[in-house]
């Protein structure tokens, strides 16, 4: 194997040696032979020349004395020269004089020859031909021609060739010997090195070493360097392998750890999922519980409250004092229970984070007005004065219902804890980006030790001498509601100096507030009768506004008659006052468009103008006609007539009450008929659907929670059917509604009443506005 490997470099060395020496020798031989050939030929020529000279001089006399015989005799002496093929003597004019041929059959001199003054010789056909003039005593006497073969030269060359071959062979042998020496000295170490390198690169075995050179020089350096390099590589490789092994081990360990961790994580995640499922189930259950609670608790309470209320009216026979007192107790207890339930449900909803706020821009002034309207009767009961103090238009970002709930809670507390004849003040002012709302009373104040505990649920003040009615949940709910809005509820109190509860709510920028002010959505929440005043003269408009506001009506001003119809459709006001002299649309035009539009045809229109044409007005459908200047009494009277006027056209169709709870159904029916309405009832959705299909009712009072077909479903069905698309529907429910549900109801129904509130009065008020009651024979 090693020998075979040797081939490359050692063979190359051998070849190189032999080639070099052979080539050198061949060159030398060739040069020598060439030189010798040339020299020999020259010598031959010289020899021939000499011979020709001798013969020439020997034959001069024969030529001169015309003796060819003698010349031939002289020429025949050339027999002794074995290389002369033929020779001849010519006369000076070139004629043949005498000739000689060694073999006349083969070689013979030419018969004539051109005269030439100088000796010439030429090589042709392997012969040398020499022609030389014979000069005797300075005179050309004749010409001699000698032809010789080159046998001598050939023989000599043959000899040279064989000698050269022998020498070459000897030389190559010597070269072989020398190269074998070189191989030992040069090739074998290199081959060995190459072999080692091959093994290293093939087997990755870095432990072997090239045999160290025992000589000096580049080879030794090369081998040493190679070995050193191998050592380095071996070390590095070992280190690398070690690192690799360690890494692998570490990776394996980590993999195992990771897998363990992964399993743990999976188990954990499974348990979390399970817990989540349980939590979801629990949460769902809680939702269901709350929903059920609100419905199931309120429904019987409504019956208790409603019927106790009806009994006190003594419509079905007089009550003795004891009965009246007891019924009063039932009613009071029922109301308390209802509040308590509402508060508990609210609180639990807040605590569960399930209370959804419908945040919008709310005008503080409007909210104050509405709350004051509601609370004033209570305050007056205790001879409190309720002052509303808002200097300018402020709007807050809040849920309007909850904002008012907070205000009512605080005012209610103030009324309750302030001795009779006290003063309760409602104020709001802007503080940077928030609005600070204050409810201040002239009560006894709260001692510092109670100021913190007062917000806890079911905490009841010990300061009041007599027990005050309440659930003890109001402030807790209030505080949480404020905090839900991103505000803060606090109090400032000094004993004997009254108490001030205050809270903050995020403020709305002025521009947005302006929009809020003219927007109907907020105004629609007002439960007071709203009058749209269409008047392009600002002074006249303000005069009308002041008269109407003083009479307790809500007023919306419209200075652009072209927008009046639009606003009327949007706001659905209780009545509209219209000026006649307006631009670009005059009052007549507006009047006729109001009366010809089905959406506004029912709204009473009061023409307030300097134009005294009542006939035209009544022709165009005006309900009242007032000629300016306007007196307050005339205006208010006209408005009142208009509002009552709507009842004049009695509906022939009944109101449909859809309610599954028999007692509540009966109570509602009783309530409505008490107020002069014809009522039909449906205990479930299917019945309601059938009744509506049979004949359209004037209005539907719809409960949402029904045994078979829900109120939402009925509503959706009716709204899709063009026949019932405009059927007025009031929703009365005990269900806790989400924001979306509320939005849906607002968009598709005329009003929403929730049984947990004081709904009866609101329902009747709203109903009276929408459908005038039939004055039955009963009343």
């Amino acid at each position, binding site marked *: 194997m090693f020998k075979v490997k040797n081939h490359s470099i050692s063979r190359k060395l051998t070849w190189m040696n032999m080639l070099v020496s052979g080539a050198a020798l061949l060159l030398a031989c060739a040069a020598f032979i060439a030189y010798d050939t040339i020299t020999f030929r020259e010598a031959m020529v010289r020899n021939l020349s000499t011979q020709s000279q001798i013969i020439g001089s*020997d034959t*001069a*006399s*024969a030529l*001169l*004395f*015309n*003796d060819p015989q*003698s010349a031939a005799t002289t020429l025949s002496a050339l027999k002794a020269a074995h290389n002369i093929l033929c020779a001849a003597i010519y006369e000076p004019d070139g004629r043949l004089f005498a000739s000689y041929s060694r073999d006349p059959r083969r070689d013979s001199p030419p018969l004539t020859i051109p005269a030439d003054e100088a000796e010439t010789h030429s090589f042709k056909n392997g012969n040398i031909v020499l022609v030389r003039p014979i000069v*005797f*005593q300075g005179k050309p006497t004749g010409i001699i021609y000698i032809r010789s073969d080159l046998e001598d030269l050939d023989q000599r060359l043959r000899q040279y060739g064989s000698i050269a071959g022998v020498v070459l062979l000897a030389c190559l042998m010597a070269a072989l010997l020398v190269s074998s020496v070189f191989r030992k000295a040069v090739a074998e170490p290199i081959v060995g090195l190459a072999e080692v390198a091959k093994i290293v690169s093939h087997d990755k075995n870095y432990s072997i070493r090239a045999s160290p050179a025992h000589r000096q020089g580049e080879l030794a350096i090369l081998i040493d360097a190679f070995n050193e390099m191998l050592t380095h590589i071996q070390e590095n490789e070992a280190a690398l392998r070690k690192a690799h092994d360690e890494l692998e081990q570490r990776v394996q360990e980590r993999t195992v750890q990771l897998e363990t961790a992964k399993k743990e994580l999976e188990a954990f995640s499974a348990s979390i999922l399970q817990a989540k499922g349980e939590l979801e189930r629990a949460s769902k259950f809680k939702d269901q519980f709350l929903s059920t609670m609100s419905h199931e608790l309120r429904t019987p309470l409504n019956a208790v409250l409603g019927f106790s209320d009806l009994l006190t009216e003594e419509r079905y026979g007089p009550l003795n004092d004891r009965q009246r007192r007891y019924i009063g107790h039932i009613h009071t207890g029922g109301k308390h229970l209802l509040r308590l339930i509402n508060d508990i449900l609210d609180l639990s909803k807040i605590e569960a984070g399930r209370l959804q706020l419908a945040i919008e821009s709310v005008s503080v002034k409007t909210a104050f007005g509405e709350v004051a309207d509601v609370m004033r009767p209570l305050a007056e009961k205790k001879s409190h004065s309720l002052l509303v103090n808002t200097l300018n238009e402020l709007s807050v970002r809040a849920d309007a219902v909850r904002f008012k709930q907070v205000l009512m809670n605080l005012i209610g507390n103030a009324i309750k804890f302030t001795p009779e004849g006290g003063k309760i003040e409602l104020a709001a002012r802007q503080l940077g980006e928030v609005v600070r709302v204050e409810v201040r009373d002239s009560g006894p104040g709260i001692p510092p030790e109670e100021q913190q505990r007062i917000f806890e649920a079911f905490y009841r003040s010990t300061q009041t001498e007599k027990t005050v009615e309440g659930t003890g949940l109001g402030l807790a709910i209030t505080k949480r509601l404020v905090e839900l809005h991103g505000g803060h509820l606090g109090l400032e109190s000094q004993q004997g100096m009254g108490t001030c509860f205050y809270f903050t709510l995020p403020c709305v920028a002025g521009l947005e507030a302006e929009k809020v002010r003219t927007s109907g959505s907020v105004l629609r929440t007002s439960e007071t009768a709203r009058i749209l005043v269409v008047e392009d003269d600002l002074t006249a408009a303000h005069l009308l506004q002041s008269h109407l506001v003083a009479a307790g009506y809500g007023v919306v001003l419209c200075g652009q008659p072209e927008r009046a119809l639009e606003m009327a459709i949007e706001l659905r006001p209780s009545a509209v006052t219209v000026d006649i002299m307006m631009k670009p649309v005059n009052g007549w035009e507006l009047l006729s468009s109001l009366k010809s539009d089905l959406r506004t045809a029912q709204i009473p229109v009061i023409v307030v103008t300097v134009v005294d044409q009542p006939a035209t007005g009544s022709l165009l459908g005006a309900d009242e006609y007032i000629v300016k200047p306007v007196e307050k009494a005339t205006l208010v009277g006209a408005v009142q007539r208009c509002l009552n006027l709507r009842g004049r056209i009695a509906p022939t169709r009944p109101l449909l009450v859809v309610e599954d709870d028999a007692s509540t159904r009966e109570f509602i029916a009783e309530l409505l008929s008490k107020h002069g309405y014809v009522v039909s009832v449906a205990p479930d959705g299917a019945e309601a659907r059938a009744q509506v299909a049979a004949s359209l009712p004037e209005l539907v009072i719809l409960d949402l929670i029904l045994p078979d077909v829900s109120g939402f479903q009925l509503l959706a069905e009716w709204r899709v059917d063009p026949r019932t698309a405009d059927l007025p529907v009031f929703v009365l429910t005990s269900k806790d509604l989400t924001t979306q549900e509320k939005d849906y109801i607002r968009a598709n129904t005329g009003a929403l009443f929730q049984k947990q509130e004081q709904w009866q009065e609101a329902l009747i008020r709203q109903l009276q506005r929408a459908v005038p009651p039939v004055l039955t024979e009963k009343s």
Partner: protein
Amino acid sequence: MPMTRSNSFAPGQSAPRNCVLNHSPRVWQYPTAIIAILAFLCVSVSHAQQSRPNEYEVKAAYLFNFGRFVKWPTTTAPDKSGSFAVCVLGQDPFGTILDSTLAGEALDGKRVTTRRISKPQDAAACRILFISSAEKNHLKEILSALDEDGVLTVSDMPDFSQRGGMIEFVMDGDRVRFEINLANAENARLTLSSELLKVAVAVRKNVPRGD
């Protein structure tokens, strides 16, 4: 002369005429060259026509050639040193041929001259003496009258070499050949080249027999 001539031409004369006038006199300035060319042409023509030389032409050439193969003794008479005289004794068979053959030649470092003599005494100044065959009767006195040394005797009379002569022309058919009597030549202290002997028909060494 040509310079002045050429200068004498006034400017303004036409160039071609100038040339013609200029050249013609120049050529005629070298009459010898023209003569030489003409002579050469004549010789060539005559030579070509005369392909085969007659007997005396050959003999005349031989006379000259003999002189080239013979060495004369250095102690030759001073008058002989002036020229190399080839003499004809008696009736001249060569005519002008001998003169024309030897004209301009030189032998033994001297100009070759021809001379016709009638008396043997005159022959002493000669180097080569051709003895007319008509003198065969007087041969003895002629030979004895010759100088001790220095005269090469040649004749075409029969038995000349036997009778004391040195070189005798003999005819071999129409070829002119010769016999030599070496003894006679040695008597005259003449050295004949072996080359000459080689081409001789016969070389004798006997002294003349006494008549």
